[in-house]
């Protein structure tokens, strides 16, 4: 068990619900059509560790290509991980038998970003919601299943008349509610929300955020909330982890992270987000972090953030900083703090 997971566990005194230890996911880059050989590796996720308790919402934030979605996909077993360990409710998920894996897929569900491409356009909403129940044999009786579909629509704030609609007849917000209802159809305990509200307009986004919070309270759900929208993350999460180029750079309680960010990248990220208040904005110092995110195929040596970092020293180029606890519950991967 890694130091992070261990400390988290001690702090919360109990077995964590989900534990990720030194997770690595490298995608091979191949060349050649018939005889393929590996020419490089994309280090999408490069050794991250964290743990989550039951009922907790952990925010995973970062910019495109930082590996936050890949982390979610690894937990969902949609990728075969390169190395590391994912422990769910006390058992390593790589050791699961077929039957256990099926059960795992029932307990762990996902809500995707794009409500337009994540619903089958040729299926009615009724079929979309009933299919998972059928597959997992939860409600074998067809009539009861129909009843459950109506119940799910109600829970998610949709009129039951939508049961006979197709996805194209609905707006983006309504479709996202169907996505949530589908995830709930198999009574999951853990939901990976991958940019679940990012594609929605603000007023609709607020409705869906409230829905997700209500469901969390009523059903005792645990969310891994993957998002690039830091304002939403601050609103919905208990703890937040910041990722950059496949590495975790900071992890802390939500308010602690937003009020006292330590890692230079976290600080730059928070500075970059405009706040909807002209007076606050006028008083802010608009520092802009230069440069772009390097390619994960050829990440910088040492600390991956050093080419863009303002507090960079020579040591940063040589060795990757250790992810250490600087305050109780506040973890940072930076030597200069």
């Amino acid at each position, binding site marked *: 068990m890694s130091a992070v997971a261990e400390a988290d566990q001690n702090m919360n005194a109990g077995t964590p619900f989900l534990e990720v230890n030194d997770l690595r996911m490298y995608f091979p880059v191949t060349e050649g059509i018939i005889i393929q050989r590996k020419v490089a590796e994309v280090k999408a996720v490069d050794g991250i560790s964290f743990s989550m308790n039951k009922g907790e919402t952990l925010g995973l934030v970062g*910019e*495109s290509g930082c590996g936050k979605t890949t982390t979610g996909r690894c937990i969902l077993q949609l990728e075969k991980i390169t190395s590391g360990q994912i422990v769910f409710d006390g058992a390593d998920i790589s050791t699961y038998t077929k039957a256990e894996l099926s059960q795992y897929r029932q307990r762990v569900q996902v809500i995707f970003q794009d409500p337009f491409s994540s619903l089958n356009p040729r299926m009615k909403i009724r079929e979309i919601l009933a299919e998972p129940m059928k597959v997992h044999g939860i409600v074998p009786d067809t009539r009861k299943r129909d009843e459950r579909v109506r119940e799910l629509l109600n829970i998610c704030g949709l009129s039951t008349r939508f049961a006979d609609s197709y996805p194209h007849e609905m*707006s*983006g*917000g*309504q479709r996202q509610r169907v996505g949530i209802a589908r995830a709930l159809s198999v009574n999951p305990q853990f939901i990976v929300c991958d940019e679940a509200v990012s594609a929605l*307009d*603000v*007023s*609709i*986004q*607020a*409705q869906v*955020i*409230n829905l997700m*919070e209500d469901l969390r309270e009523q059903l005792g759900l645990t969310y891994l909330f993957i998002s*690039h929208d*830091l*304002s*939403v993350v*601050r*609103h*919905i999460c208990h703890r937040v982890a910041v990722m950059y180029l496949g590495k975790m750079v900071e992890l802390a309680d*939500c*308010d602690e992270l*937003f*009020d006292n960010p330590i890692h230079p990248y976290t600080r*730059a*990220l*928070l*500075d*970059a*987000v*405009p*706040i*909807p*208040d*002209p*007076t*606050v*904005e006028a008083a802010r110092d*608009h520092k*802009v*972090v*230069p440069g*772009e*995110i390097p390619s994960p195929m050829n990440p910088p040596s040492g600390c991956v953030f050093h080419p863009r970092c303002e507090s960079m020293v020579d040591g940063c180029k040589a060795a990757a900083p250790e992810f250490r606890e600087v305050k109780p519950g506040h973890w940072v991967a930076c030597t200069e703090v």
Partner: protein
Amino acid sequence: MGVSSFTAIFRQCKKRIQDTWGVAVAKLLRIENLKTQFFTSAGTVRAVDGITYDVDEGETVAVVGESGCGKSVSALSVMRLVAEPAGRIVEGRIVFRGTDLLSLTEEEMRRVRGKDIAMVFQEPMTSLNPVLTIGLQLTETVQQHLDVDEATATMRAVELLGLVGMSDAERRLTQYPHHLSGGMRQRVMIAMALSCEPKLIIADEPTTALDVTIQAQILELMKNLTRELGVAMIIITHNLGVVARYADRVNVMYAGKVIETGTAKDIYHNPRHPYTIALLKSVPRLDRPRGAKLDPVQGQPPDLARLDDGCAFRPRCRYAVDKCAVAVPDLETIDGIHKSACFEKDEVDIALKVAS
């Protein structure tokens, strides 16, 4: 050749124009009662339904609203790029430096587009031509509008890329859009927009597709350039934070109409339209610990093909009265340039003050 020489050239041009025309033109653009409609099999969609606003020289005006409120169509209308025959500007005037753009022929309009008024689109991936080099796309505009030879145009292209903060400009000219990242492509779009020293840039969601640190870079760049070069900008966005950071004046749109307009401070600190209030309450704040739950407006935006005689926001409005169903409220002055289109705008204010 850097920002300073470019600025000097611009100042000279501006002075010459002012000398020639006698006066400095204050109102750069005035949109009057603009109506753009789409004629579809499902009925007439009133995408832009009688909007009026103006832009002063060197000013940054934001148009904010949610999907389908007509903010992009209003921008396309100014450029006269609404796709005919389905879409048509049916009424109104768009007066740009004294000329009604709607009275120009297509040939005359072509000379305005890209030269006097330039546009930066949302998707840098799709708005650049993938089979032409960056250099060709930049010089094309310059040669088209400024009547210069290729060598001069290339020099200008190099200067422009430097201006938008792209290193190694000469090499960039030979590259194709797919060689560049999203942020770099948007820089190229801005360079293209600036290439002919426009008076007005319309930026339609210029940073929506970009990551936050890159978004901050691009917005700072646009702010600095518009300030240095004295270019006015209409920035169209759904991001209330971006508006608060950059806009001098704000127009809030809903269902094809401007429902509230004023300075950024008016809109954020003293909102007088229920929709503006709802919008502000829907956004979680990064700078404050989580307080209560969000208080979003219920329901969906209306179908623009099926609008009735009343206020379009009425079905979702918690302040609605009987009058709202029979008449559409006009924009009425509250204070200075702050206007709201709501019958209950004073009651809204009282209710807000009581609540807080």
